Structure formats: structure tokens, C-alpha cells
């Protein structure tokens, strides 16, 4: 039995009168790929934000590697090895792809000294390897802001990978990407999971993608966990179908 890397226990989060997340519990096993689906506005991104410490939760606990992280700040959680990507891709527009990657490398030293360090050749090689992995090596000197949307998504993915996370939260990695590129991205996600040993928690609207990737899927609706199970179970679950298509 594999250990749980991330454990979310009965998390509540409301914005004013809107209960975005209500009593949500989920767990992500070490080395797995877990999917999070649900209609628009069902609270998926809110849950992501709660997990990475972007806003405090009203109630409940979040544990990462058995460590309580509910009250930690965003950068501290990121440094523990849990990173997220954004639904609206966020990269450093005014910097070259290479520099986007360089600043995403984890620090080798701690404290004040780390502010003034420069990169070793070994790290540069690793960056080039990672850029080739996502197919952006030839664009490495371009400003990130000049890349196409799909390429920016790939860059953001590469930036997350180079930071060497244990758990990666991906918020709609394939939204707005053309079908050919999506296939490539699925392959890369699998490679990241199997060969780099990165556990993945993925929000995704593209059912083909998520059913392909995930071993276990949670379905959210109206801020609550509606159903969970293997892709097969989710696909045949009448409650899930109702949530997406509406009852007639």
C-alpha cells in the first residue's frame, strides 16, 4: 500500500455567502495521477488555491507528507515540493525562456547567500534537457511573452518540472491547446509521473485526457465531492452524468 502524499480533510471555504468548498476530503497517493473534474464553478480552482496556501481555509486540515500545511504561506509550501500551475498560464513574459527556467531551478543554498548565487553548468544542462523535453529548446532565447499560448503552457509545465516537485497540481493543462499538442502533453505528463516520479493532481475538463491519465478521479459539484473512483466508475456513475448534463 502506497502512502498518501497529500491529505485534505473536511476543508471548508466560503467567500461571503458563497460556499465554494464544503466538507471536502481527498487524498493523493504517492506516485499516482489523480484527476479532479466538475462543472464550471464547482470549486476546483478554489480547492487548489486552498491547498497551496493562496488563501486560508475556514475549516479543515491539509497535510502534505504528514506535515500540517494548512497555515503555511505560498512560497513555503512551494519549497516543500508542492507546486501548481495556473488556469490562466502564468510565465515571466519579459524574460527569455532560458531565464524563465533558470529562476525556477531550486536553490542549492539557503539563506541570504542564495539571493546572490549564479547557476552551475550542471544546472544549465538540466535546463536544456528539460526545454528539449517539452520541445522548446529552439525557442529558448525568445522572450516567453512572444511564444504562442500552447507553447507558454508547455513552458509553464517545464518550469514546474525543473523545480523538482514531489507533487504537481495542474489546473487545466490542456485548455486552449490544439489536439496534436494535447497528445504530446499527455505523453509528457505520463513520463513526468513514471520516470521523474512526480505525483500529479490534475484539474481537467477534457474527458479524453483525464480518463486516459488518471487512476483515480474526484468529481466536484456545487463545492462538494459528488463522486470518486476509477475512470470507469466515474464514467458510468449516473450522479456524475446528471451534474454535467443536468437532470431532465
Amino acid at each position: 500500500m502506497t502512502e498518501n502524499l497529500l491529505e485534505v480533510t473536511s476543508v471548508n471555504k466560503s467567500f461571503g455567502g458563497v460556499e465554494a468548498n464544503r466538507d471536502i476530503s481527498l487524498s493523493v497517493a504517492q506516485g499516482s495521477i489523480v484527476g479532479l473534474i466538475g462543472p464550471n464553478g464547482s470549486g476546483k480552482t478554489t480547492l487548489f488555491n486552498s491547498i497551496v496556501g493562496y488563501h486560508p481555509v475556514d475549516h479543515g486540515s491539509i497535510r502534505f507528507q504528514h506535515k500540517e500545511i494548512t497555515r503555511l504561506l505560498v512560497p513555503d509550501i512551494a519549497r516543500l515540493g508542492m507546486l501548481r500551475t495556473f488556469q490562466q498560464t502564468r510565465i515571466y513574459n519579459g524574460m527569455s525562456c532560458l531565464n524563465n527556467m533558470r529562476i525556477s531551478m531550486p536553490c542549492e543554498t539557503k539563506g541570504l547567500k542564495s539571493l546572490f548565487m549564479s547557476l552551475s553548468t550542471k544546472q544549465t544542462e538540466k535546463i536544456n534537457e528539460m526545454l528539449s523535453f517539452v520541445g522548446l529548446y529552439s525557442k529558448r532565447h525568445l522572450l516567453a511573452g512572444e511564444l504562442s499560448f500552447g507553447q507558454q503552457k508547455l513552458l509553464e509545465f517545464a518550469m514546474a518540472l525543473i523545480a523538482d516537485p514531489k507533487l504537481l497540481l495542474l489546473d487545466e493543462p490542456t485548455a486552449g491547446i490544439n489536439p496534436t499538442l494535447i497528445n504530446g502533453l499527455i505523453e509528457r505528463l505520463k513520463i513526468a509521473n513514471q520516470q521523474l516520479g512526480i505525483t500529479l493532481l490534475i484539474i481537467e475538463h477534457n474527458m479524453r485526457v483525464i480518463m486516459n491519465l488518471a487512476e483515480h478521479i474526484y468529481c466536484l459539484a456545487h463545492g462538494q465531492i459528488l463522486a470518486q473512483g476509477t475512470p470507469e466508475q466515474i464514467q458510468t456513475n449516473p450522479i456524475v452524468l446528471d451534474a454535467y448534463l443536468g437532470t431532465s
Partner: protein
Amino acid sequence: MNNRYYYLLLLFVSLAAPFVLPDYRTQLALLWVMVIFALTWDVMGGQMGYNSFGNILFFGVGMYACAVIQRDSGLSYFPALLLGIAAGGVIALLLALLIGNGLLGLRGHYFAIGTLGLGVAAGEIAGGWDYIGAGSGMTPPLFPTELTVRDTFFYYLFFIWALLTFFSLHWLYQGRFGLALNAIRDNEDKAEAMGLHTTRYKVAAWSVAALFLGVTGGAMGNLIGFIDPKEVAFAGSTYGVWMILMAIAGGKGTLWGPVIGAVVFHITQEIFWTLLLGWQRVALGALIIVIVLFFPQGIMGWVRQQFPRRIDSDQLTSDQLTSDQITSEQIASKQRIPDNPRQTHHQRKNKQSHPL
């Protein structure tokens, strides 16, 4: 390298300048002060995208700190000056750490507004504090030898300090520090999500600017010879605004931009004073409008547009491949487990149609 000759030429011109133009020694010394102003403002304003209107605070604090030490230390002129300059830098740095930790929690425009009051408040406080001469200001001790030697001395002092500022920043921008500042400029939320302690970087950046400004202020008080709280030390409406203008005019976010901006600005400003006395501020205003309208990216930005950077040679050879080609090759080489059960499972499922 061609660059080396340019540097040597610049160095030679700078060293010879006070002897070639002996009448302009004070102005030339001031030129280096302007360069330091623009360079230090650009650390926050250009590289990090945080417009600070309060950097003049550190300049004034350094100036007063130096003057107080010169007055009270009992040392002879040069040791006291050296100690005072150093103290000015250190006190400015500590002040930046103190204020920065509070103020740099604010982001973007809110930070800019927050800094607006700093210089004004400091000027008011200095103007009412008897220990530092209150409204009548302070007069640093007289330079022990004749005036021409004094001007030459300060020329070289500011020249060396400007060089130190330039190369320190050059070194800082090349490493992780510079990258982090740029990352904060481009997307602070992302930088935080990637694990950067952005507030630490912001405070560090401000402290670096404060250190160089504080030292400059300390020496500047001695060059001018009189410290007025509002017109010299915390001169927000002149130096405080100029440092921003020079950095923007030259091209913010670059290393050479502020330097070029400062030189161009200072020379034009002096020409306006000489030729258009009475209208010099109007002419200066017109110049600013021209710069903002026609060179919004500054002189350096305009130059970069006209002469785009050459592409690296290795980029041309290996990178003719399209990204898709590299992609498939990479995947082929990376996938060493073709008969992985899970993969076949996925491939099988790939062909199924999904009800959702």
C-alpha cells in the same frame, strides 16, 4: 572583443575629463551623482517594476548621517569624511530594511503611492529637528585645501563610486538575484507560487539601492557645502523626480539605459540653464514629453528596436528543427518501457469513446 576597447575609451575619457574641462569639474562630479541616482532607482523601478518615489530618503539620510559624524567625531577632515560616508551608507541600508519590511508588503501601484510621502515626511522631520540644525540646515566642515583640489577630489570620488555601483549591479543582475527581480516584475504571484520569497528579494533590492544612495548622499553634502533639509537633502521635486526621469529616458530595466539617460539628461539640463535661462524648466518639460511620446522604451529600448540582437551561433545550427521534431525524438528516447502494462491499458482506453 570590441567591447573592451569601448570600456577603455570610456575609462580614459572619464579620467581625463576634469583636466580637459577644468571649469566644469563640479558639473562633471554631479554627472556621476546623476548616474548613480538613475542606476539605483532602476534596481526597483526598472528591473523589479516597483516605482519608488521615495528613494531620495536614503540620499538625504546618508547626507545628514555623514554631516553629523563629521561634526561630532572630532576626527580630522578625511578620516571623518570616510567614516561619515560609510555610516551614511549603513544607516540608509538599515532604514531600507526597516521601512522595506513594512512597505514592500504593498504591491505595484500601492507601493508607489506609499513611497510618495517618504521624502516629504523626512524633509519635514529634518526641518524640525534641532540636533541636525532644523530649518537652518547643516554645514559640513570646509575642505582643507583649495577649491579646485576639492572639486577634483569629489569628481574622482563620485567616479569611483559610480563605477562600483555599476559593476555591483552588473554582477547582481547576472545571478539569481537579477532573475528574481525580473520575475517579480513580470508576475509576482507566479514567483511566489514557484517558491520565491518575493518580499525578501524586494527588501534586498531596496537595501542595495539605499546603500549606494546613502554613500552618495554623504559625499554630496560635502561637495555642495550646505545641507538644506528640503532643497538639498530631501529634494523630492528635483533629484527625486530626476532619478526617475533619467532611468526612464535612458531605458529602464537595462544596465546601460540609466547611465545613458543620466548623461543625456544632465547635459541637456545644463544647456537649457545656460541658453534658456528662465525657461529652463519649460524646456525640460518639453524634453520629457518628447521622450515619453517618441521613445517610450527609452533610448536603450529604441536602440534595441532599431538593431535587434544577433542570434546566437549555436541557435542557427542545431535549432533548424521544428519543435515537433524534437518532441517526438525526445519522447522516443525517454520512453524506455514500451511494454509497461499501464501504458497499454491507457492505449486501449484511448480508443474507447467516453460518454462525458
